[in-house]
């Protein structure tokens, strides 16, 4: 134990804040300024963007800070909460845990892309009616995970909804109302498609 410096211990246990007592090796002011960057093509909510991104930027950062799509939230920036959930090629992912360069050539859907032609998605309608959001900070993520779930399982059971959304934490603890909302939206969608058929 005594051989491990306190700094290394802090980092090693994952408890470290941004905290060091010695400068990082090989880090010079110049090197820091010349950050590697790459041009990527992203299709976001149907619009194609060509962007020059720093390689260290996350997808969440690009969406929020560079495309102005602030509906996706950053609750932890480390893949633990789900507030940043978006659909990447239709699959729900944590956008804080994807580098923007990895999304090159791919399709992203965010909460801003849910409503179509000014009409709210049935999930959004149900979230309003069943009081899904309390503080609302987890809501965009809950919506996107719910969207991914209903896309591949249009008739989920209560337990399937819970499982499908379990990567989305709600500290306001409104899980019951979120699950109710998703089941209600699934019922609406089913009724709609019966009407159309």
């Amino acid at each position, binding site marked *: 134990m005594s051989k491990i410096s306190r700094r290394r211990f802090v980092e090693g246990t994952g408890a470290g804040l941004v905290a060091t007592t010695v400068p990082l090796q090989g880090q010079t002011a110049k090197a820091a300024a010349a950050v590697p960057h790459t041009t990527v093509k992203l299709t976001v909510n149907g619009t194609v963007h060509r962007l020059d991104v720093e390689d260290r930027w996350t997808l969440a950062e690009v969406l929020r800070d560079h495309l102005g799509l602030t509906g996706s939230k950053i609750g932890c920036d480390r893949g633990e909460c789900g*507030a940043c959930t978006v659909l990447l090629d239709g699959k729900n992912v944590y956008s804080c845990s994807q580098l923007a360069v990895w999304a090159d050539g791919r399709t992203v859907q965010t909460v801003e892309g849910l409503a179509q032609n000014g009409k709210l998605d049935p999930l*959004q309608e149900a979230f309003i009616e069943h009081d899904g959001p309390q503080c609302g900070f987890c809501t965009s993520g809950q919506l996107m995970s719910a969207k991914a779930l209903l896309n591949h399982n249009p008739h989920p059971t209560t337990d399937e909804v819970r499982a499908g959304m379990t990567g989305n934490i709600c500290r306001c603890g409104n899980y019951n109302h979120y699950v109710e909302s998703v089941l209600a939206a699934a019922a609406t969608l089913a009724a709609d498609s019966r009407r159309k058929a």
Partner: protein
Amino acid sequence: MNTLKTVGHPTSRIDAEKRVTGTATYTGDLRLPGMLYARVLRSPHPHARIRRIDLSRAQALPGVKAILTHENCDVIWGSGDMRNKRYLFNDPVRFVGDAVAAVAATDRHTAEEATRLIAVDYEVLPFVLEPEDALKPGAPEIQPGGNLSPTARGAHEPEQYRRGNIDEGLRAADRVFEDQYSSPHINNAQLEPRVAIAQWDGDRLTVHTPTQGISNCHTEIARDLKLAPEKVRIICQFMGGGFGNKNQDHDFELMAAVLAQQAGAPVKIEFTRKEDFLAVHGRWPTKQYYKVGVRNDGTLTAIQLRGYSGMGPYRKGTGGIAGIEIYQCPHVERLVYPTYTNKAVSANLRGPDFPQGVFGIESLMDDVAYALKMDPVEFRLKNMTRKLNDQIPYTSIGLEDCIRRGAEAFEWRKRWHAPGEGSGPVKRGAGMAMGSFSSSMGRSSAVIDLDARGTYHLHVGVTDIGTGAKTTMALIAAEELGVPLEKIDVIWGDTDRCPFSVGESGSRTTTQTGWAVVEAAKDLKRQMAEKGLPQGNQLLTATVNANPAPLTGQARYSFVAHFAEVEVDTETGHVRVTKYVAAHDSGRIVNPLTAESQVKGGATMGIGMALHEELLYDRASGQPLNAGYYGARILTHLDTPEVDVLWIQTEDPYGPFGAKTLGEPTIIPSPASVGNAIHNAIGKRVNDLPITREKILGVLA
């Protein structure tokens, strides 16, 4: 209870559409032109003196615009400690996470990098983590004057409450029960991390910040930065939760303001999730020692509590341990020692003094009931409070109904059995617990402008931390004015546009600001009758600073009883909550839809507190080990049972339409009811929160 037109009907939030379309703008979503980003460097040591800070490499990094440390910034954060001087940057540093420096730079990556380039030479000091150790002679002194945090009068003695004579009460008992309980430091873990933007316009400061109270944040930022109040503006349009850790002013707001001043540009400061867990505050950990005297017929004769609360190194909260007041009993003594330690700072988290204290006393009372061969429900009905401290009558009390009707809805008789009965490996059990919470009236304000088009512009200083306060205020205004909800336009969350509000803490908004709304609406109606309706560009304005006289000879409280059923796998120690009923007397419920969300949320948070949450420390190094959502094992969709909500709407003569407090009572009896259910299932008690698998397997072994 009479039915009202608008109040009392389930109503979707007036801002719900914004919340589901990503268009609700939170502080972190804002960007100002030329804005810099700030990051904080923190102590890696639980206790250390700073010998030297070398900023040269950080200052040389292109893009770095300003750096603050204790050497160039002596701002005192008044709300950070109610007893000692707590600076924004302290020397010595007193816990892992204490702020050492803050850097503003052109982007967040540069700011972050700059913090890594700051070299700090620390002289490491001895540290202490547990309150009882901190009070021993020879323990490292964390604050001048000793580790027992002084009372408001400056006396180094425990907080005390007494009635009757405890020795007499214990002598009068047929049996005396004694036990000890503990609860850990846990984090508020609201989903929105800390972020503020400070902008100076000449000598006027605007701070965008996710606060639970724009008014107190405003007064306190002005105080701490020595500015005239009119030179400060606080704006919060949407905020992502706080549960007690975003009330008053905070260090990050002050840091942003000072950095912005030095850099001559707006500054957005962001804390990481880890910083939010370690460097802000969480619920105070406690150790509780009880003695209870009881007669053979189940009548209580004495309750004694000696408790220790770990405050971290700064006194940011009271450290109180509440719960024994839910019992009537002639002889009571409570001594609580709020103590400095080198752990993370402790202060308010939803029902600050309560769920951990109620866990202690309700665990013990459950054991007393069993020992006397009484049904725990009957025992509580016999001994529950009838007057506050057996002396002061309540304005209304629905506790008995909460217990009786809650038990009925829960099917208590069917689910409850002798402790440990039933064959394994998966055992079921039922438990309950009760609680109370002050719902007193107090000062708040509201302004209503009526325009010629018939729209009522309601200005209230709320921020709506998730409770639905904006909607609640609008419903109250619509009801009193006798107009449809759509006629009410709510203006909130901006000290330039809104009058004083009490702040969304102590669950006071509905009762206090709601009362001001009622008074303002009444005033406006009087004016309309006198002056007629406004024409053209005229406005008819009602301004009310309501300051209801304190109740004398009466106490106003909310009451609650929760019932939980669990399944315990005796082979793995895994617990699943299978049924949950929450019965609440919060007077008239203004909006049953959002109120239900509150109860579900509070109960869920309480279940997490019962089973999962604890900030662990390595004893040898003083390092926190599991900061973050995974580490805290915050409850997820899969862990959460259906919570059934039962309203016991007592008629209360005070408050807006008789509404009482709700937000905080929702968590109070939750950990205790789960703990009691586990005991009922396995016939063994775990006295230390959280009740983890290892502890369950431990008591079963």
